[in-house]
């Protein structure tokens, strides 16, 4: 899947010298060494694969970066401008490519991004059973508790969500699951049967339209980060729909202090909180908490 977007020389090295199953990210920065993140640790990319030696590292250039963005957009940047405005592109096979460059604003609105100077290719993984330890706390007597997955970036939130949906399917728990997927990456490598998907929509619109038109039992969505997202969740919780969502925070203490979530905490919308970290590699379960933030289990 990387061959389509990477320059031929780099694609050859990546495909022949790296085990992509362990690779989390590949980062390209203009005139800087190419970085490969494996198991949460950074390495340089060399002709012979991974290296820790800077002198063997392969360097990226601005042309390479622009070409990656061009190829990731299927040679049609105009067709993915709405994504580029938000700083990323998701390819058809679920690769999420974060983009750095110059933001062009007009009347306070982001119009586009130009002069790309860095890209971060995140390789989606489906880690089977990574949500299994939390599963009995979230689903019991066929009832799903509203759950929020909390972690810093790159700690496996999306992978957790994906595996949880797969676990439901594997157990033949035929809930109607709605993936509300702002970035179009949630169902990459997802092996599940009972889900619908609304992609590239704002949370507010996705929640409203999804509940109205698809009658979901459970809505799964990634990265709650704005007031409008919180309002959408509060709305869904009053409609009898269960919610599995994720957000960024590095600890429960930080999360509890965030003003954005005060309403959700006060209303006890989420009955379970799962904290993930990179301590033993991405996806390390640090604990599961109830609505009163009492730890139910640590791992």
């Amino acid at each position, binding site marked *: 899947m990387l061959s389509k977007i990477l320059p031929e020389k780099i694609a050859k090295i990546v495909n022949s010298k790296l085990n992509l199953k362990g690779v989390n990210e590949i980062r390209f920065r203009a005139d800087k060494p190419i970085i490969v993140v494996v198991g949460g640790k950074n390495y340089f990319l060399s002709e012979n694969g991974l290296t820790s030696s800077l002198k063997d590292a392969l360097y990226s250039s601005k042309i390479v970066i*622009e070409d990656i963005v061009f190829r990731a*957009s*299927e*040679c*049609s*940047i*105009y*067709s993915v401008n709405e994504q580029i405005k938000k700083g990323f592109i998701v390819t058809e096979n679920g690769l999420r490519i974060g983009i750095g460059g110059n933001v062009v604003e007009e009347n306070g609105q982001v119009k*586009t991004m*130009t002069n790309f100077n860095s890209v971060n290719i995140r390789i989606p993984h489906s880690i089977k059973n990574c949500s299994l330890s939390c599963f009995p706390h979230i689903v019991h007597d066929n009832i799903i508790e509203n759950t929020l997955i909390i972690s810093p970036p790159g700690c496996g939130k999306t992978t957790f969500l994906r595996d949880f949906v797969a676990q439901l399917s594997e157990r033949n728990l035929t809930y109607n699951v709605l993936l509300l997927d702002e970035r179009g990456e949630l169902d990459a490598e997802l092996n599940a049967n009972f889900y619908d998907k609304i992609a590239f929509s704002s949370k507010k619109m996705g929640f409203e339209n999804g509940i109205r038109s698809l009658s979901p039992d459970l809505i799964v969505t990634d990265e709650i980060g704005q007031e409008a997202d919180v309002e959408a969740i509060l709305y869904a919780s009053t409609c009898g729909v269960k919610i599995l969502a994720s957000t960024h925070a590095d600890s429960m203490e930080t999360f509890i202090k965030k003003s954005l979530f005060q309403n959700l905490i006060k209303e006890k919308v989420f009955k379970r909180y799962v904290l993930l970290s990179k301590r033993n590699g991405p996806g390390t379960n640090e604990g599961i908490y109830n609505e009163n933030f009492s730890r139910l289990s640590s791992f």
Partner: protein
Amino acid sequence: MKYIIIAVLFVICLVVGFTFFSKYDKRKKFFTSLIMLAEKLTVEINFSRERLKVLIENFDKNTRQNLLGIDEGFVSYLDKKTELNEKEIFKKADVLKKDEKDFILLFLKTLGRSDVENQTKEIASFTNRFQEMRVISDTEYKKYGTLSLKLSLIAGLFFVIVLI
């Protein structure tokens, strides 16, 4: 035998004339079709925002035939099978001049590289230049294309009369 030679000479004159005519005809049709492609891209990029490859592949088949293979070369580049250079793109476009090839190559290099607004402006600016090229090729067609056909017919008849 004499009549066979006369007939052969007459045909040769017509073939030479038709070859020149065909060159100007191809050029005229090429620029007309290129402008149609550019206009189609402008409309689709603004409304459907479909991928370039799909837009080019869905472009009218008959009009595509006049594009002298540059559409195929470009799709092949989009598929990462060939490079975007003069040698690969203009394999079948020997009727185009060097400066025309350079300009068309520049046009292809800008496709898909920017947002809708900028892409539309870029295509419009290239289309203006393509219009000028079409006017020139149209004038050449009228001036030299039909002239070469008429001259070849006159030359053929001249040989017929002289030899008879």
